[in-house]
């Protein structure tokens, strides 16, 4: 079974602090996607990383794909209450395959 492990499961921080969420697997991804989901809504795609070692920045969010394409991280700088949500990593383990999701990291940013 191909699994994605996310850590931590829950993160509570104060506004202005930084945070990092991790996504790991024993298998190689062909690509890796990060989504954010708010209560009562479906996941919203934040970024897709494809190349090992790739780093992508989206305003205060930085996404990194491991060199071996088995792990990824999401770093948020100076978190704001609007960053609160469930962060999910997902990837196909081969091009075109089904999208496998991690269990998610619930982030709470307190004002």
């Amino acid at each position, binding site marked *: 079974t191909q699994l994605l492990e996310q850590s931590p499961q829950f993160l509570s921080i104060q506004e202005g602090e930084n945070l990092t969420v991790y996504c790991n697997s024993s298998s190689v991804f062909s*690509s890796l996607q990060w*989504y954010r989901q708010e209560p009562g809504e*479906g996941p919203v795609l934040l970024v897709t990383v494809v190349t090992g070692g790739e780093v992508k920045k989206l305003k205060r969010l930085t996404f990194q794909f491991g060199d071996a394409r088995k792990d990824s991280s999401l770093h948020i700088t100076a978190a704001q209450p609007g960053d609160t949500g469930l962060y999910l990593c997902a990837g196909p383990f081969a091009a075109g395959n*089904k999208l*496998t*999701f991690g*269990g998610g990291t619930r982030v709470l940013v307190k004002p």
Partner: protein
Amino acid sequence: DAGVTQSPTHLIKTRGQQVTLRCSPKSGHDTVSWYQQALGQGPQFIFQYYEEEERQRGNFPDRFSGHQFPNYSSELNVNALLLGDSALYLCASRERGNYGYTFGSGTRLTVV
């Protein structure tokens, strides 16, 4: 531009009944996937449709079936509902060849 549309938004069914959920993909998208998301967990892949055929299937029993129509819209059918089928059912679409999926807001199914 409308994204992925799902109906109904909420549904309550009795154990043993059958249910049909509907999904209209984002304009220009031809591939539709269905996911089940239990409370506090990540979505679990049910199946994917392309060109009106089921292309991939997750670890779900045959009680779960689907269909894709020529206009790319899709249905998810669940027979003989169990209490454990209570979950948020998400539909996602993408343009074939692209990586990212667009998700609908889901249908919250409660089985009593």
